[in-house]
């Protein structure tokens, strides 16, 4: 008898022998036939990672990426039939891979790519216009709470992640220079885009996300160009609700 535990064991382990009881038409064991399933599983997972992490693929090169992704896929098969979720801990895997220690920014780029995918599938919202805030009385504006869209995702890094990401996918983009960069992923209608944030803006956005009022959020991030951030948030349709 071939249990599914037996069948599964060799799918993710290329060194495991073929399970017993699997044959060709003549009743003869045929490892190459079992190999079709082994190959399908691994290649489909590696392909999914390549589709989901194009900047990492570009930065590492095809051969390196696929070798690394094969290693990841065998050790970390999906935990859900929703392949859109696959690779949630790929960034963590990259951070723990010794051979990549000289590319310490890779995990943050992977987190950015996973964030873009998460944003793509996030719930829709009803974008509020800037005029909805402007029409409030001044004291109401101070106390207003701005809720960010479910598709808005904040990422903070000590690396120039915006510039590295852009350069990875467009070699004609400027060469990244050493700098810490924060990104806010926003999805206007359907296509998420990473927006480079001005200094300290992440603190302001975190405060909004934590349910602080507008005046509290401004106090939280004193050196921030609040006008520029609000313009970004409203023009990109990223405010889902204004509570007064």
């Amino acid at each position, binding site marked *: *008898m*071939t*249990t*599914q*535990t037996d*069948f*599964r064991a060799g*799918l993710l382990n290329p060194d495991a022998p073929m399970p017993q*009881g*699997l*044959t*060709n*038409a003549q*009743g*003869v064991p*045929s*490892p*190459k*036939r*079992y190999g*079709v*399933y082994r190959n*399908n*599983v691994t290649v*489909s*997972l590696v392909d*999914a990672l390549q589709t989901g992490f194009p900047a990492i693929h570009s930065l590492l090169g095809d051969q390196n990426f696929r070798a690394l992704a094969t290693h990841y896929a065998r050790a970390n*098969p*999906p*935990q*859900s*039939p*929703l*392949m*859109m979720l696959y690779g949630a801990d790929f960034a963590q895997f990259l951070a723990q891979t010794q051979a990549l220690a000289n590319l310490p920014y890779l995990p943050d780029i992977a987190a950015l790519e996973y964030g873009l995918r998460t944003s*793509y*599938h*996030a*719930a*829709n919202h009803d974008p509020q216009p800037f005029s909805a805030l402007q029409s409030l009385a001044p004291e109401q504006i101070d106390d207003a709470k701005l809720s960010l869209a*479910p*598709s808005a995702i904040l990422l903070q890094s000590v690396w120039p992640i915006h510039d590295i990401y852009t350069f990875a996918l467009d070699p004609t983009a400027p060469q990244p220079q050493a700098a810490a960069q924060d990104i806010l992923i926003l*999805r206007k209608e*359907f*296509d998420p885009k990473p927006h480079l944030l001005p200094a300290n803006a992440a603190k302001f956005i975190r405060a909004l996300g934590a349910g602080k009022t507008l005046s509290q959020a401004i106090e939280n991030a004193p050196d921030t160009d609040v006008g520029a951030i609000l313009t970004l948030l409203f023009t990109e349709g990223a405010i889902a609700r204004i509570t007064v």
Partner: protein
Amino acid sequence: MFDTTMCSLPLAPGLGYKPQHFADIMQDAGRTRWFEIHAENYMGQGGRPLAQLDALASRFPISVHGVGLSIGGEGPLDADHLARLKTLCDRINPASFSEHLAWSSHGAEYLNDLLPLPYTNASLSRICDHIDQVQATLGRKMLLENPSSYLAFSESTWSEPDFLREVAKRTGCGLLLDVNNVFVSATNLEFSPQDYIANFALEEVGEIHLGGHDEDEDDHGKPLLIDSHGREIADPVWALLDITLAHSGPRPLLVEWDTDVPDWPVLAAEADRAAQALTRVFV
């Protein structure tokens, strides 16, 4: 109980929906009258996939085709996944829901492939229990699809057509007959595809699948066909379709093309060929 009416897909060609063809389809779908989606791609919270699906479903009958339920799994069905399928079916009220005679999950692990199982009394009883659960939860009749096989299980005691006929009889589910899978399995396991069709419960078939396959060889130099869905449907598969339709009468015909997906006109041409095959049995 569930709605036992036969699947309401049109007796016409359908195509596997790919997002890159959305604009072409909305402009002119040609002879394609319905679309099939892979359920798992539409289980996010929002965004473009669901918006496109809603637009598509407002214009065309939709077949929801699951690839991740693992109906043939040794363990229990994933209740969360079944609930997601119900949410999706409730959202668009599809003309058909189908899944595979295969397994893809092992415990919490999802292996992203349709894996084979032996045809025994034990697997029969387990699959029937799972299908009962699916049909009761979704409140609709489902279709179960025959797999592509690359190997045989020495412990099997049922032939595949008999096994599927018995599943349909016990659960009241319908069958989805993939003619390419029949051709692939028949080549790989050296049986006659015509005999397979002759033994198949064609009266239970609510949908027929067609797709392309790749050619390889096994360890002993014997032909090994791979169900890749990455090219045109092979001529012998079209011939097997004609034989099938001659016995079954017209059925909804789906062309699947999932890897190296071509531009819309290439797919539309395959749908035209499917339409011609149907025309031959309508007269």
